[in-house]
């Protein structure tokens, strides 16, 4: 790690003031990703502004019947929070599918949103990477790209977003609340993360000097028919090859509302309104699910080592929708996929 200065923020306004006065400073909360990246020399902040003691650790009901989750609620506390377990079990399941118990105890809600890709070339400062060094080139496109994206890629970057939690938040239509020099903002979850385009160095639409203060969930939690199905190389503690958050509202066998978000396949949690529209009003059946999967994957593009993900994603979507429709969500401890 390079030398850096350390300061604590006394409140949110102070945090924003401090970061606005030093463009090379970074916030630190859980630190699980940032400290790792600093050890690898990928992140080289001049100063760390410690926000971990700010009062952003509560989970509160909203007037709209949803929940407002403070940005510093640890991932484990969120996953095991009784209101999350009861009303948003898909979110709890997604969180528990990611990382390890120790990391979930440390990692914050806001930090989970802001974690960087685990693309091996992004991490290896000896190789070109447009995300790390804009304009230097993408090593993954012609390199080892088994873990990489199949949707929404660009000629500049084929990295994936690593989060499980964010896949569920995308499916749930969460809102990200931020504070910055220009005041507070609310950002729809689908607008928070970006596709790489020709600016892969920007993971999110968070502006300079902005801080995430909360994540808000709308009332609709899909607690009856949901699953989070994650396919990975090991049974636990591995990033997704493909993951699917699937949520349905059923009336008999008819799908009234459907949400489908994918992880491990794109630079952001991937949602496709046309695939969800293809589920609404239809009978919950294998053929309906397959049609939606085909629609979602119509523009999928594989690279040398990851083309298998396209068929894997298709099968995972169908299986996840089947689990959701049958009210048999994937267990995150017994890994048998039923």
């Amino acid at each position, binding site marked *: 790690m*390079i*030398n850096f*200065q350390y300061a604590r923020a006394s409140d949110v306004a102070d945090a924003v003031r401090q970061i606005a006065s030093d463009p090379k400073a970074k916030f630190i909360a859980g630190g699980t990703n940032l400290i790792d990246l600093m050890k690898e020399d990928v992140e080289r902040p001049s100063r760390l502004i410690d926000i971990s003691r700010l009062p952003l650790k509560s989970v509160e009901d909203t007037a709209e019947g949803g929940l407002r989750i403070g940005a510093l609620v640890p991932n484990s506390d969120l996953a095991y929070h009784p209101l999350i377990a009861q009303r948003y079990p898909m979110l709890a399941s997604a969180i528990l599918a990611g990382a390890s*118990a*120790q990391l979930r*105890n*440390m990692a914050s809600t806001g930090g989970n949103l802001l974690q960087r890709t685990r693309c091996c070339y992004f991490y290896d400062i000896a190789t070109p990477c447009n995300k790390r060094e804009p304009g230097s080139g993408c090593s993954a496109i012609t390199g080892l790209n088994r873990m990489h994206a199949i949707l929404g890629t660009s000629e500049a970057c084929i990295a994936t977003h690593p989060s499980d939690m964010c896949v569920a938040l995308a499916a749930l239509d969460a809102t990200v609340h931020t504070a910055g020099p220009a005041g507070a903002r609310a950002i729809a979850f689908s607008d928070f993360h970006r596709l790489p385009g020709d600016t892969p160095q920007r993971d999110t639409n968070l502006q300079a000097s902005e801080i995430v203060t909360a994540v808000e969930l709308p009332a609709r939690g899909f607690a009856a028919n949901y699953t989070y199905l994650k396919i990975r190389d090991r049974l636990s503690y591995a990033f997704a090859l493909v993951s699917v958050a699937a949520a349905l509202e059923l009336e008999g066998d008819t799908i009234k509302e459907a949400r489908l978000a994918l992880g491990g396949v794109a630079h952001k949690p991937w949602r496709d309104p046309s695939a969800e529209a293809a589920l609404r009003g239809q009978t919950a059946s294998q053929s309906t699910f397959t049609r939606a999967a085909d629609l979602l994957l119509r523009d999928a593009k594989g690279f040398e080592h990851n083309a298998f993900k396209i068929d894997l994603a298709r099968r995972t979507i169908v299986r996840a929708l089947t689990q959701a429709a049958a009210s048999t969500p994937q267990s995150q*401890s017994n890994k048998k996929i039923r």
Partner: protein
Amino acid sequence: MAQTGTAVPPTRETVAPPDKIPVALSVNGVTRQLKVAPWTTLLDALRDHLDLTGTKKGCDHGQCGACTVLVDGRRINSCLTLAVMKDGAKVTTIEGLASNGALHALQQAFIDHDAFQCGYCTPGQICSAAGLIAEGKAKSADEIRELMSGNICRCGAYPNIVAAIQQAMGGS
């Protein structure tokens, strides 16, 4: 041969080293005052500043769990935590689990079940298991395996580790 001696060393942005920062930690029940640079991880503070070398440095990237300690009762990876951020915290390491000369139930269970070979991951395994038991979420062997997945044992003592944890939980 090209002339040597005119090579310019690669430029590297540097920041003036800041003053060391005073930190108070309650480690295994004893308050310890130390002064550390901001980039000192909790792991390095424990091992290099407080000579508590029971906590192991494995990967130093949060992937192996050898550095697991309990901070304010919760298991974390001490390699991914800055000591300055934990000012005022209560830290329990493997050295703090035994009390009055009696092994912690997990330490005894690891011996009873031969739950290690080389032993390098063991302090992290035991601290992680102590955290797991305190969390109270694991009941079945599947759940123990899943919630201990952040601790790697390259000797492959996993079946015995699960058996030891079950014994300490009072399950078998």
